[in-house]
Protein backbone atom coordinates (compact mmCIF):
# COMPACT_ATOMS: atom_id res chain seq x y z
CA UNK A 1 0.00 0.00 0.00
CA UNK A 2 3.01 2.27 0.37
CA UNK A 3 3.81 4.36 -2.64
CA UNK A 4 7.10 3.36 -4.17
CA UNK A 5 9.01 3.42 -7.43
CA UNK A 6 6.30 1.24 -8.99
CA UNK A 7 4.48 4.53 -9.46
CA UNK A 8 7.16 5.77 -11.83
CA UNK A 9 7.33 2.45 -13.65
CA UNK A 10 3.59 2.48 -14.17
CA UNK A 11 3.65 6.05 -15.42
CA UNK A 12 6.25 5.07 -18.01
CA UNK A 13 4.23 2.00 -18.98
CA UNK A 14 1.08 4.08 -19.28
CA UNK A 15 2.88 6.64 -21.41
CA UNK A 16 4.20 3.93 -23.72
CA UNK A 17 0.81 2.27 -24.12
CA UNK A 18 -0.90 5.57 -24.84
CA UNK A 19 1.81 6.54 -27.29
CA UNK A 20 1.57 3.20 -29.08
CA UNK A 21 -2.21 3.47 -29.25
CA UNK A 22 -1.94 7.03 -30.47
CA UNK A 23 0.51 6.18 -33.25
CA UNK A 24 -0.30 2.67 -34.36
CA UNK A 25 -3.77 1.67 -33.23
CA UNK A 26 -6.21 4.52 -33.26
CA UNK A 27 -5.48 6.28 -36.57
CA UNK A 28 -5.48 3.21 -38.85
CA UNK A 29 -8.58 1.74 -37.21
CA UNK A 30 -10.52 4.98 -37.30
CA UNK A 31 -9.52 5.86 -40.85
CA UNK A 32 -10.39 2.35 -42.03
CA UNK A 33 -13.77 2.60 -40.35
CA UNK A 34 -14.40 6.00 -41.88
CA UNK A 35 -13.38 4.67 -45.26
CA UNK A 36 -15.90 1.91 -44.93
CA UNK A 37 -18.60 4.33 -43.84
CA UNK A 38 -17.90 6.35 -46.96
CA UNK A 39 -17.98 3.23 -49.07
CA UNK A 40 -21.33 2.21 -47.66
CA UNK A 41 -22.72 5.69 -48.23
CA UNK A 42 -21.46 5.70 -51.79
CA UNK A 43 -22.88 2.23 -52.34
CA UNK A 44 -26.31 3.30 -51.11
CA UNK A 45 -26.21 6.36 -53.34
CA UNK A 46 -25.17 4.23 -56.31
CA UNK A 47 -27.90 1.69 -55.74
CA UNK A 48 -30.48 4.44 -55.49
CA UNK A 49 -29.25 5.90 -58.74
CA UNK A 50 -29.29 2.57 -60.49
CA UNK A 51 -32.82 1.95 -59.23
CA UNK A 52 -33.81 5.23 -60.85
CA UNK A 53 -31.98 4.21 -64.01
CA UNK A 54 -33.81 0.90 -64.06
CA UNK A 55 -37.16 2.66 -63.83
CA UNK A 56 -36.18 4.99 -66.64
CA UNK A 57 -34.99 2.11 -68.81
CA UNK A 58 -38.23 0.25 -68.12
CA UNK A 59 -40.21 3.26 -69.27
CA UNK A 60 -38.08 3.56 -72.35
CA UNK A 61 -38.53 -0.09 -73.14
CA UNK A 62 -42.30 0.21 -72.67
CA UNK A 63 -42.55 3.12 -75.08
CA UNK A 64 -40.36 1.29 -77.55
CA UNK A 65 -42.57 -1.78 -77.41
CA UNK A 66 -45.62 0.42 -77.89
CA UNK A 67 -44.23 2.16 -80.94
CA UNK A 68 -43.06 -1.13 -82.36
CA UNK A 69 -46.52 -2.55 -81.89
CA UNK A 70 -48.17 0.34 -83.69
CA UNK A 71 -45.61 0.11 -86.45
CA UNK A 72 -46.28 -3.57 -86.84
CA UNK A 73 -50.00 -2.92 -86.99
CA UNK A 74 -49.48 -0.34 -89.70
CA UNK A 75 -47.33 -2.72 -91.70
CA UNK A 76 -49.89 -5.48 -91.30
CA UNK A 77 -52.72 -3.22 -92.42
CA UNK A 78 -50.73 -2.14 -95.42
CA UNK A 79 -49.97 -5.69 -96.32
CA UNK A 80 -53.62 -6.64 -96.00
CA UNK A 81 -54.65 -3.80 -98.19
CA UNK A 82 -52.11 -4.73 -100.77
CA UNK A 83 -53.15 -8.34 -100.67
CA UNK A 84 -56.78 -7.35 -101.08
CA UNK A 85 -55.84 -5.19 -104.01
CA UNK A 86 -53.84 -7.98 -105.60
CA UNK A 87 -56.70 -10.42 -105.18
CA UNK A 88 -59.12 -7.86 -106.60
CA UNK A 89 -56.87 -7.23 -109.59
CA UNK A 90 -56.47 -10.90 -110.20
CA UNK A 91 -60.22 -11.37 -110.05
CA UNK A 92 -60.77 -8.57 -112.49
CA UNK A 93 -58.17 -9.88 -114.84
CA UNK A 94 -59.62 -13.36 -114.68
CA UNK A 95 -63.06 -12.04 -115.36
CA UNK A 96 -61.80 -10.10 -118.36
CA UNK A 97 -59.98 -13.13 -119.62
CA UNK A 98 -63.07 -15.20 -119.17
CA UNK A 99 -65.19 -12.70 -121.05
CA UNK A 100 -62.65 -12.50 -123.79
CA UNK A 101 -62.40 -16.26 -124.12
CA UNK A 102 -66.17 -16.67 -124.01
CA UNK A 103 -66.71 -13.96 -126.64
CA UNK A 104 -64.03 -15.32 -128.93
CA UNK A 105 -65.49 -18.78 -128.58
CA UNK A 106 -68.89 -17.35 -129.35
CA UNK A 107 -67.48 -15.70 -132.50
CA UNK A 108 -65.89 -18.94 -133.52
CA UNK A 109 -69.14 -20.75 -133.02
CA UNK A 110 -71.01 -18.14 -134.99
CA UNK A 111 -68.48 -18.38 -137.77
CA UNK A 112 -68.74 -22.16 -137.75
CA UNK A 113 -72.49 -21.93 -137.90
CA UNK A 114 -72.33 -19.56 -140.87
CA UNK A 115 -69.82 -21.81 -142.59
CA UNK A 116 -71.89 -24.85 -141.88
CA UNK A 117 -74.95 -23.08 -143.24
CA UNK A 118 -73.04 -22.02 -146.32
CA UNK A 119 -71.70 -25.48 -147.06
CA UNK A 120 -75.10 -26.95 -146.32
CA UNK A 121 -76.64 -24.47 -148.76
CA UNK A 122 -74.07 -25.37 -151.31
CA UNK A 123 -74.50 -29.09 -150.88
CA UNK A 124 -78.20 -28.82 -150.92
CA UNK A 125 -78.18 -26.70 -154.05
CA UNK A 126 -75.84 -29.12 -155.78
CA UNK A 127 -77.93 -32.09 -154.71
CA UNK A 128 -81.10 -30.37 -155.77
CA UNK A 129 -79.54 -29.42 -159.03
CA UNK A 130 -78.37 -32.91 -159.63
CA UNK A 131 -81.74 -34.28 -158.77
CA UNK A 132 -83.49 -31.67 -160.88
CA UNK A 133 -81.07 -32.35 -163.69
CA UNK A 134 -81.88 -36.01 -163.51
CA UNK A 135 -85.57 -35.26 -163.51
CA UNK A 136 -85.73 -32.64 -166.09
CA UNK A 137 -82.75 -33.40 -168.32
CA UNK A 138 -84.91 -35.00 -170.79
CA UNK A 139 -87.53 -32.36 -171.06
CA UNK A 140 -85.92 -29.03 -170.56
CA UNK A 141 -82.60 -27.58 -170.94
CA UNK A 142 -81.05 -26.52 -167.83
CA UNK A 143 -80.74 -23.02 -169.02
CA UNK A 144 -84.43 -22.56 -169.36
CA UNK A 145 -85.18 -23.30 -165.87
CA UNK A 146 -82.25 -21.75 -164.07
CA UNK A 147 -84.29 -18.75 -163.22
CA UNK A 148 -87.01 -20.79 -161.72
CA UNK A 149 -84.51 -22.81 -159.69
CA UNK A 150 -82.82 -19.70 -158.42
CA UNK A 151 -86.16 -18.33 -157.44
CA UNK A 152 -87.02 -21.41 -155.48
CA UNK A 153 -83.59 -21.43 -153.96
CA UNK A 154 -84.09 -17.92 -152.74
CA UNK A 155 -87.40 -18.92 -151.27
CA UNK A 156 -85.75 -21.85 -149.55
CA UNK A 157 -83.14 -19.56 -148.20
CA UNK A 158 -85.79 -17.44 -146.63
Amino acid at each position, binding site marked *: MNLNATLLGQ*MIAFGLF*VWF*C*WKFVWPP*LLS*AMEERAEKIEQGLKDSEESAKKIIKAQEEADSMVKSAKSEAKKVLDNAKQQADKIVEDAKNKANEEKDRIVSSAQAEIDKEVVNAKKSLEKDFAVNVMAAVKKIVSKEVSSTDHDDTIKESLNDFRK
Partner: protein
Amino acid sequence: MASESSGRTFQEYLAHHLQNLVYGPLPEGHERKFYAKGDTAAEKDSYCQDKGMDYDGSKYCKETLAEDGWYLANNKTDVEAMGFWALNIDTLFFSILLGSIFVFLFARAAKNFSLEKPTKLQCFIEMMIDFINGVVKGTFKAAKNTLIAPMALTIFFWVLLMNVMDLVPVDLIPYPAELLGVPYLKVVPTTDLNLTAALALSVFVLYLIFSIKSKGFIGFIKSISLHPFGPWMLPANLFIEIIDLIAKPLSLALRLYGNLYAGEMIFLLIAGMVSINLAELTLTGIGLNLAGIALSLIWAIFHILIVVLQAFIFMMLTVVYMNMAHEKFEQH
Protein backbone atom coordinates in the same frame (compact mmCIF):
# COMPACT_ATOMS: atom_id res chain seq x y z
CA MET B 1 -9.17 -22.74 -0.22
CA ALA B 2 -8.48 -20.56 2.75
CA SER B 3 -6.27 -19.91 5.66
CA GLU B 4 -5.79 -23.32 7.16
CA SER B 5 -4.41 -24.84 3.95
CA SER B 6 -1.24 -22.85 4.31
CA GLY B 7 -1.10 -23.11 8.10
CA ARG B 8 -1.95 -19.47 8.61
CA THR B 9 -4.59 -17.82 10.71
CA PHE B 10 -7.29 -15.97 8.84
CA GLN B 11 -5.74 -12.61 9.69
CA GLU B 12 -2.43 -13.76 8.28
CA TYR B 13 -4.20 -15.07 5.19
CA LEU B 14 -5.81 -11.69 4.62
CA ALA B 15 -2.59 -9.78 5.22
CA HIS B 16 -0.77 -12.19 2.93
CA HIS B 17 -3.20 -11.64 0.08
CA LEU B 18 -3.13 -7.90 0.45
CA GLN B 19 0.65 -7.70 0.30
CA ASN B 20 2.39 -6.99 -2.98
CA LEU B 21 5.46 -8.82 -4.17
CA VAL B 22 8.03 -6.09 -3.50
CA TYR B 23 11.56 -6.11 -4.84
CA GLY B 24 13.81 -3.50 -3.31
CA PRO B 25 17.06 -2.60 -1.60
CA LEU B 26 17.73 -3.73 1.96
CA PRO B 27 20.53 -2.35 4.08
CA GLU B 28 23.28 -4.35 5.73
CA GLY B 29 22.28 -5.61 9.15
CA HIS B 30 18.58 -5.78 8.34
CA GLU B 31 16.93 -8.78 9.94
CA ARG B 32 14.73 -10.75 7.56
CA LYS B 33 12.08 -13.18 8.74
CA PHE B 34 10.68 -16.12 6.84
CA TYR B 35 7.65 -18.16 7.68
CA ALA B 36 8.78 -21.48 9.14
CA LYS B 37 6.91 -24.53 7.86
CA GLY B 38 6.18 -27.47 10.16
CA ASP B 39 3.84 -28.47 12.96
CA THR B 40 6.18 -28.71 15.96
CA ALA B 41 8.99 -26.47 17.11
CA ALA B 42 11.54 -29.14 16.19
CA GLU B 43 10.22 -29.45 12.66
CA LYS B 44 10.29 -25.69 12.24
CA ASP B 45 13.82 -25.56 13.60
CA SER B 46 15.05 -28.15 11.13
CA TYR B 47 13.17 -26.38 8.28
CA CYS B 48 15.00 -23.18 9.17
CA GLN B 49 18.33 -24.95 9.38
CA ASP B 50 17.74 -26.49 5.94
CA LYS B 51 17.48 -22.96 4.62
CA GLY B 52 20.62 -21.88 6.48
CA MET B 53 18.80 -19.66 8.97
CA ASP B 54 18.07 -19.46 12.67
CA TYR B 55 14.73 -20.35 14.19
CA ASP B 56 13.26 -17.52 16.31
CA GLY B 57 11.38 -19.87 18.63
CA SER B 58 7.83 -19.13 17.50
CA LYS B 59 6.85 -18.86 13.83
CA TYR B 60 9.74 -17.57 11.83
CA CYS B 61 13.21 -18.27 10.64
CA LYS B 62 15.42 -15.22 10.76
CA GLU B 63 18.45 -14.04 8.86
CA THR B 64 20.60 -10.97 9.30
CA LEU B 65 21.85 -9.49 6.03
CA ALA B 66 25.62 -9.36 5.74
CA GLU B 67 25.59 -6.77 2.92
CA ASP B 68 23.38 -4.26 1.08
CA GLY B 69 21.43 -5.62 -1.84
CA TRP B 70 18.14 -5.99 -3.64
CA TYR B 71 15.79 -8.60 -2.19
CA LEU B 72 12.20 -9.74 -2.45
CA ALA B 73 10.40 -8.43 0.63
CA ASN B 74 9.10 -11.13 2.91
CA ASN B 75 6.97 -9.08 5.25
CA LYS B 76 5.88 -5.61 6.18
CA THR B 77 9.13 -4.76 8.00
CA ASP B 78 11.10 -5.60 4.84
CA VAL B 79 8.83 -3.39 2.76
CA GLU B 80 9.15 -0.52 5.19
CA ALA B 81 12.93 -0.87 5.26
CA MET B 82 13.05 -0.70 1.47
CA GLY B 83 11.49 2.74 1.34
CA PHE B 84 10.56 4.44 -1.93
CA TRP B 85 13.00 2.78 -4.31
CA ALA B 86 11.27 -0.56 -4.44
CA LEU B 87 9.20 -2.16 -7.18
CA ASN B 88 5.95 -4.04 -6.89
CA ILE B 89 6.88 -6.85 -9.26
CA ASP B 90 3.40 -8.35 -9.37
CA THR B 91 1.68 -5.07 -10.18
CA LEU B 92 4.19 -4.25 -12.88
CA PHE B 93 4.11 -7.74 -14.33
CA PHE B 94 0.34 -8.12 -14.53
CA SER B 95 -0.35 -4.56 -15.64
CA ILE B 96 2.21 -4.65 -18.40
CA LEU B 97 1.09 -8.12 -19.44
CA LEU B 98 -2.54 -7.00 -19.65
CA GLY B 99 -1.63 -3.75 -21.35
CA SER B 100 0.42 -5.66 -23.89
CA ILE B 101 -2.48 -8.02 -24.55
CA PHE B 102 -4.70 -5.01 -25.17
CA VAL B 103 -2.21 -3.29 -27.44
CA PHE B 104 -1.44 -6.51 -29.28
CA LEU B 105 -5.10 -7.29 -29.97
CA PHE B 106 -5.85 -3.82 -31.22
CA ALA B 107 -2.68 -3.47 -33.24
CA ARG B 108 -3.35 -6.82 -34.90
CA ALA B 109 -6.90 -5.79 -35.70
CA ALA B 110 -5.58 -2.56 -37.16
CA LYS B 111 -3.04 -4.42 -39.25
CA ASN B 112 -5.43 -7.09 -40.52
CA PHE B 113 -8.30 -4.69 -40.97
CA SER B 114 -10.57 -5.88 -43.75
CA LEU B 115 -13.28 -3.69 -45.21
CA GLU B 116 -15.18 -6.55 -46.84
CA LYS B 117 -14.67 -9.49 -44.51
CA PRO B 118 -14.37 -8.38 -40.88
CA THR B 119 -13.54 -11.07 -38.34
CA LYS B 120 -15.49 -11.28 -35.09
CA LEU B 121 -12.57 -9.74 -33.23
CA GLN B 122 -12.51 -6.89 -35.68
CA CYS B 123 -16.25 -6.33 -35.25
CA PHE B 124 -15.80 -6.16 -31.49
CA ILE B 125 -12.87 -3.78 -31.79
CA GLU B 126 -14.73 -1.59 -34.22
CA MET B 127 -17.62 -1.49 -31.78
CA MET B 128 -15.26 -0.40 -29.01
CA ILE B 129 -13.58 2.23 -31.18
CA ASP B 130 -16.98 3.54 -32.14
CA PHE B 131 -18.07 3.61 -28.51
CA ILE B 132 -14.96 5.44 -27.32
CA ASN B 133 -15.10 7.79 -30.28
CA GLY B 134 -18.70 8.61 -29.45
CA VAL B 135 -17.89 9.33 -25.81
CA VAL B 136 -14.90 11.50 -26.69
CA LYS B 137 -16.76 13.39 -29.41
CA GLY B 138 -19.66 14.00 -27.05
CA THR B 139 -17.53 15.19 -24.13
CA PHE B 140 -14.33 16.62 -25.54
CA LYS B 141 -15.44 19.69 -27.45
CA ALA B 142 -13.11 22.45 -26.30
CA ALA B 143 -10.43 21.89 -28.93
CA LYS B 144 -9.00 19.40 -31.38
CA ASN B 145 -6.52 16.96 -29.95
CA THR B 146 -5.82 13.58 -31.52
CA LEU B 147 -4.29 12.22 -28.32
CA ILE B 148 -7.48 12.25 -26.27
CA ALA B 149 -9.38 9.45 -28.00
CA PRO B 150 -6.51 6.93 -28.10
CA MET B 151 -5.71 7.78 -24.50
CA ALA B 152 -9.33 7.21 -23.51
CA LEU B 153 -9.26 3.87 -25.34
CA THR B 154 -6.06 2.84 -23.59
CA ILE B 155 -7.33 3.85 -20.18
CA PHE B 156 -10.67 2.12 -20.63
CA PHE B 157 -9.27 -1.15 -21.87
CA TRP B 158 -6.23 -1.32 -19.71
CA VAL B 159 -8.16 -0.53 -16.54
CA LEU B 160 -10.93 -2.88 -17.60
CA LEU B 161 -8.56 -5.78 -18.16
CA MET B 162 -6.79 -5.13 -14.86
CA ASN B 163 -10.12 -4.89 -13.04
CA VAL B 164 -11.29 -8.13 -14.62
CA MET B 165 -8.41 -9.88 -12.85
CA ASP B 166 -10.49 -9.27 -9.73
CA LEU B 167 -12.97 -11.88 -10.99
CA VAL B 168 -10.29 -14.55 -11.05
CA PRO B 169 -10.75 -16.59 -7.87
CA VAL B 170 -8.55 -15.09 -5.15
CA ASP B 171 -6.30 -18.12 -4.68
CA LEU B 172 -6.18 -19.41 -8.22
CA ILE B 173 -2.92 -17.70 -9.15
CA PRO B 174 -1.30 -16.77 -5.79
CA TYR B 175 -1.51 -20.30 -4.32
CA PRO B 176 0.32 -22.15 -7.13
CA ALA B 177 2.76 -19.25 -7.29
CA GLU B 178 3.46 -19.65 -3.59
CA LEU B 179 4.12 -23.35 -4.10
CA LEU B 180 6.58 -22.33 -6.79
CA GLY B 181 8.35 -20.07 -4.33
CA VAL B 182 6.78 -16.67 -4.96
CA PRO B 183 6.09 -15.41 -1.45
CA TYR B 184 3.42 -12.83 -2.29
CA LEU B 185 1.29 -12.20 -5.33
CA LYS B 186 -1.43 -9.65 -5.91
CA VAL B 187 -2.96 -10.34 -9.28
CA VAL B 188 -5.22 -7.31 -9.53
CA PRO B 189 -2.97 -4.37 -10.40
CA THR B 190 -5.72 -1.83 -9.76
CA THR B 191 -5.80 -2.83 -6.09
CA ASP B 192 -2.34 -1.31 -5.86
CA LEU B 193 -2.40 2.41 -5.14
CA ASN B 194 0.85 2.76 -7.08
CA LEU B 195 -0.86 1.90 -10.31
CA THR B 196 -3.98 3.99 -9.88
CA ALA B 197 -1.88 6.91 -8.67
CA ALA B 198 0.43 6.50 -11.66
CA LEU B 199 -2.53 6.69 -14.05
CA ALA B 200 -4.04 9.63 -12.21
CA LEU B 201 -0.72 11.46 -12.04
CA SER B 202 -0.10 10.92 -15.74
CA VAL B 203 -3.54 12.32 -16.48
CA PHE B 204 -2.82 15.21 -14.12
CA VAL B 205 0.48 15.99 -15.84
CA LEU B 206 -1.29 16.04 -19.19
CA TYR B 207 -3.96 18.24 -17.63
CA LEU B 208 -1.35 20.76 -16.55
CA ILE B 209 0.45 20.63 -19.90
CA PHE B 210 -2.70 21.13 -21.94
CA SER B 211 -3.97 23.80 -19.56
CA ILE B 212 -0.82 25.87 -19.92
CA LYS B 213 -0.70 25.21 -23.64
CA SER B 214 -4.22 26.42 -24.30
CA LYS B 215 -4.48 29.22 -21.75
CA GLY B 216 -0.86 30.28 -21.73
CA PHE B 217 1.12 30.28 -18.51
CA ILE B 218 -0.30 33.63 -17.44
CA GLY B 219 -3.78 32.49 -18.36
CA PHE B 220 -3.33 29.34 -16.30
CA ILE B 221 -2.15 31.34 -13.29
CA LYS B 222 -5.08 33.67 -13.77
CA SER B 223 -7.49 30.76 -13.99
CA ILE B 224 -6.43 29.52 -10.58
CA SER B 225 -6.03 32.93 -8.91
CA LEU B 226 -8.81 35.18 -10.26
CA HIS B 227 -11.52 32.55 -10.07
CA PRO B 228 -14.25 32.28 -8.72
CA PHE B 229 -14.43 35.46 -6.60
CA GLY B 230 -12.46 38.00 -8.61
CA PRO B 231 -9.06 39.60 -7.98
CA TRP B 232 -9.93 41.04 -4.54
CA MET B 233 -10.23 37.61 -3.04
CA LEU B 234 -7.03 36.21 -4.50
CA PRO B 235 -5.93 34.08 -1.51
CA ALA B 236 -9.34 32.49 -1.25
CA ASN B 237 -9.36 31.88 -4.99
CA LEU B 238 -5.95 30.25 -4.88
CA PHE B 239 -6.96 28.09 -1.94
CA ILE B 240 -10.13 26.87 -3.59
CA GLU B 241 -8.65 26.37 -7.04
CA ILE B 242 -5.57 24.54 -5.82
CA ILE B 243 -7.69 22.17 -3.76
CA ASP B 244 -9.87 21.71 -6.81
CA LEU B 245 -6.80 21.00 -8.91
CA ILE B 246 -5.30 18.49 -6.50
CA ALA B 247 -8.64 16.82 -5.93
CA LYS B 248 -8.69 15.75 -9.56
CA PRO B 249 -5.82 13.23 -9.55
CA LEU B 250 -6.50 12.31 -5.94
CA SER B 251 -10.12 11.41 -6.57
CA LEU B 252 -9.21 9.57 -9.77
CA ALA B 253 -6.57 7.48 -8.04
CA LEU B 254 -8.47 6.80 -4.84
CA ARG B 255 -11.81 6.02 -6.46
CA LEU B 256 -10.42 3.23 -8.62
CA TYR B 257 -8.10 1.93 -5.92
CA GLY B 258 -10.76 2.04 -3.21
CA ASN B 259 -13.40 0.30 -5.27
CA LEU B 260 -11.16 -2.51 -6.43
CA TYR B 261 -9.36 -2.92 -3.10
CA ALA B 262 -12.66 -3.17 -1.26
CA GLY B 263 -13.98 -5.59 -3.86
CA GLU B 264 -10.90 -7.78 -3.52
CA MET B 265 -11.18 -7.58 0.27
CA ILE B 266 -14.74 -8.83 0.17
CA PHE B 267 -13.74 -11.71 -2.12
CA LEU B 268 -11.06 -12.56 0.45
CA LEU B 269 -13.51 -12.41 3.35
CA ILE B 270 -15.89 -14.66 1.47
CA ALA B 271 -13.02 -17.01 0.62
CA GLY B 272 -12.33 -17.17 4.36
CA MET B 273 -15.72 -18.80 4.84
CA VAL B 274 -14.83 -21.68 2.57
CA SER B 275 -12.75 -24.54 3.92
CA ILE B 276 -11.27 -27.47 2.06
CA ASN B 277 -10.24 -29.28 5.22
CA LEU B 278 -12.79 -32.03 4.63
CA ALA B 279 -11.72 -34.17 7.57
CA GLU B 280 -12.76 -31.57 10.10
CA LEU B 281 -15.89 -30.49 8.28
CA THR B 282 -18.87 -30.08 10.60
CA LEU B 283 -22.49 -29.37 9.68
CA THR B 284 -21.95 -25.68 10.34
CA GLY B 285 -18.81 -25.91 8.25
CA ILE B 286 -20.77 -27.34 5.31
CA GLY B 287 -23.33 -24.56 5.66
CA LEU B 288 -20.59 -21.98 5.79
CA ASN B 289 -18.95 -23.48 2.70
CA LEU B 290 -22.16 -23.41 0.71
CA ALA B 291 -22.88 -19.86 1.87
CA GLY B 292 -19.36 -18.84 0.88
CA ILE B 293 -19.68 -20.35 -2.57
CA ALA B 294 -23.06 -18.71 -3.11
CA LEU B 295 -21.85 -15.37 -1.79
CA SER B 296 -18.73 -15.34 -3.93
CA LEU B 297 -20.88 -16.08 -6.97
CA ILE B 298 -23.27 -13.24 -6.13
CA TRP B 299 -20.42 -10.85 -5.39
CA ALA B 300 -18.64 -11.82 -8.61
CA ILE B 301 -21.76 -11.13 -10.66
CA PHE B 302 -22.20 -7.80 -8.94
CA HIS B 303 -18.53 -7.13 -9.41
CA ILE B 304 -18.80 -7.48 -13.18
CA LEU B 305 -20.76 -4.25 -13.03
CA ILE B 306 -18.21 -2.49 -10.80
CA VAL B 307 -15.31 -3.63 -12.94
CA VAL B 308 -16.74 -2.11 -16.11
CA LEU B 309 -18.21 0.90 -14.37
CA GLN B 310 -14.94 1.90 -12.70
CA ALA B 311 -13.03 1.57 -15.96
CA PHE B 312 -15.65 3.69 -17.67
CA ILE B 313 -15.66 6.32 -14.91
CA PHE B 314 -11.89 6.63 -15.01
CA MET B 315 -11.93 7.09 -18.76
CA MET B 316 -14.88 9.46 -18.69
CA LEU B 317 -13.36 11.69 -16.01
CA THR B 318 -10.08 11.74 -17.88
CA VAL B 319 -11.87 12.99 -20.98
CA VAL B 320 -13.78 15.55 -18.91
CA TYR B 321 -10.56 16.82 -17.31
CA MET B 322 -8.88 17.01 -20.71
CA ASN B 323 -11.81 19.04 -21.96
CA MET B 324 -11.48 21.39 -18.99
CA ALA B 325 -7.76 21.71 -19.67
CA HIS B 326 -8.44 22.79 -23.25
CA GLU B 327 -11.01 25.42 -22.34
CA LYS B 328 -9.90 28.98 -22.81
CA PHE B 329 -9.70 31.15 -19.74
CA GLU B 330 -12.69 33.41 -19.41
CA GLN B 331 -12.96 36.31 -17.03
CA HIS B 332 -16.20 36.08 -15.09
